C-alpha cells in the first residue's frame, strides 16, 4: 500500500496539517480533511469544472491535482470570497442579482473561474467570457444568467478599483 504523507495546506489564509494517501485529490482533501465542502465534485476527471479553486491565484481543477502537490501553495476556495461580516464578493453578489444559479451545484466552480478571469482581464469581451467559461458545465443550463452575472461583476469590480485609485 502507498503510505500516507503529511501535507501542510494554506486555504483561505488558514493553515491545515493533514495526513493523506498520495492518491487523494486536492478536492477530496479540501472536503474531507479540511471540512471545506463548498468546493463540489462533479465528474472527477477534469471535464465539468465544479471543483475549480485558485492555487497561487490561478484557477485549476482540484480533481486533477493531488493534495500532496498543494504543499506550500496558497489555495482560495469559495469559502474564502465573502468578507468576515458576510458581505458577498462582487462575483457572488452578481450571481444573486442576475439569478445566476438554479440548483447551485456548479456555482462554486463558476464563481472561482470568474474571479480568476476578471482578475486577469477586467473588461472581457462577450467572446472572451464565453471562452473563459467553456470549461464549466451547468446542467440546469442557466448559462445566460451566468453571463449576465459576469457583466455585473465586471462592472462592480471596475468601479471598485476606480474608487480605490482615487
Amino acid at each position, binding site marked *: 500500500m502507498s503510505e500516507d504523507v503529511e501535507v501542510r495546506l494554506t486555504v483561505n489564509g488558514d493553515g491545515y496539517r493533514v495526513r493523506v494517501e*498520495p492518491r487523494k485529490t486536492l478536492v477530496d482533501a479540501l472536503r474531507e480533511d479540511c471540512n471545506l465542502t463548498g468546493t463540489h465534485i462533479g465528474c472527477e476527471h477534469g471535464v465539468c469544472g465544479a471543483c475549480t479553486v485558485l492555487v497561487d491565484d490561478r484557477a485549476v*481543477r482540484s480533481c486533477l491535482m493531488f493534495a*500532496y502537490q498543494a504543499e506550500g501553495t496558497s489555495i482560495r476556495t469559495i469559502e474564502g470570497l465573502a468578507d468576515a461580516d458576510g458581505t458577498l464578493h462582487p462575483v457572488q453578489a452578481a450571481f444573486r442579482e442576475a439569478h445566476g444559479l438554479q440548483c447551485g451545484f456548479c456555482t462554486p466552480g463558476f464563481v472561482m473561474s470568474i474571479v480568476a478571469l476578471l482578475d486577469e482581464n477586467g473588461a472581457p469581451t462577450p467572446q472572451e467570457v464565453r471562452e473563459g467559461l*467553456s*470549461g464549466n458545465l451547468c446542467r440546469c443550463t442557466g448559462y445566460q444568467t451566468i453571463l449576465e452575472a459576469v457583466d455585473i461583476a465586471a462592472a462592480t469590480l471596475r468601479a471598485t478599483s476606480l474608487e480605490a485609485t482615487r
Partner: protein
Amino acid sequence: MKCAPFRVELPSTVDEVVAALVEHGEDAKILAGGQSLIPMLAMRLARFDVLIDVHHVDGLASIQLDQNTIRIGSRVRQSEIERSDVIKRHLPVLAEATALIGHFQIRNRGTIGGSLVHADPAAEYPAVALALGATFEVTGPAGTRVIPAADFFLGYWTTALTDDEVLVAIHFPIPEGKRVGMTVKEVARRHGDFALAGAVASIGLDPSGAIVETAIALFSAADQPLRLTEMEAALTGHSPDSLDIPALSAAAAAGLAPGDDLHGSADFRRHLFRHLIADVAAEAITRAQEATNV
C-alpha cells in the same frame, strides 16, 4: 472514480528521474501537469505502482532564447507559454496553438512536455512541433539524445521515448531574419474540446516573394500528426499568385483517412480539413508577406 493507490517519488534531478525509471520500469509513470494522466488514473484506464513527480526537478521549467532556437523545458506550463513575451515575440504561433488547448484551468497545470509525450493525435503541440521542425532533448541511462519531431510520434499515444527515458526539453527553431509566416487553426464543437480537425502551416518566402519553404501539419487526421508532403512540394518554388490553393487543399484533404465516429464522420472531417488547409496556407503566406522581422 478514485485513482488506484500508488507511491510517489519526488526526484530533484534528471538523473534521479532516470534512475527511478530504470528501477521501476513499466510499473512507473512520470507525472508532469497531470491533466491527461490523472483523468486516466481516475477512470482506471491506467494504473501504476509509482508516479515519478517531476515538479521538483531542476532545470525543466525554463524558456530560453538562443540565437536561432527557443529551448522550452518539458515542465513549462502551457499558461506560461501563452504569457511568455519571448514566445509571443519570436514564435507567436506557439502561443496561438496553446490558447486552443483545453480550458484555461487546464493550461494552468498542463505542461508542454506532458502534452507532447502523451501524443494524443488530436493534440495541438505535436502537430506544431512537426510543422516547425522541433527537436526533442531526451535523457536516459546512456545519456542524452536528440530526436527530431519527424521521428518522435509513432502512433496513438506512442512516441520514440523508451521506458527509461525522460523528455527534458523541446527546441524550436525560430525564423529570425527570414520572411516566414506561421499559423494554426482548428475546429472543435466547443472551445476547449478535442479538435475534430486542425492544421498548422509555416511558409517562407524569398526576397522576390516566391515560396521557398513550406510545412503543413495536421492533427486529428490520423493516429499521429501528419505532414502534407505532396502539397508542400506543390507550393515550394512558386509564387503564391500562381497557385490554386483551394484546389491543392481539396486534393490533399481527399487523400486523408480521418477518424469516423460519433463526433464527426470521416467525410465531414475531410470537408473541415479541405477548408482548414486552405485557410492556414493562405494565412501563412499573408503573414510571411507582412513579416517585419527581416
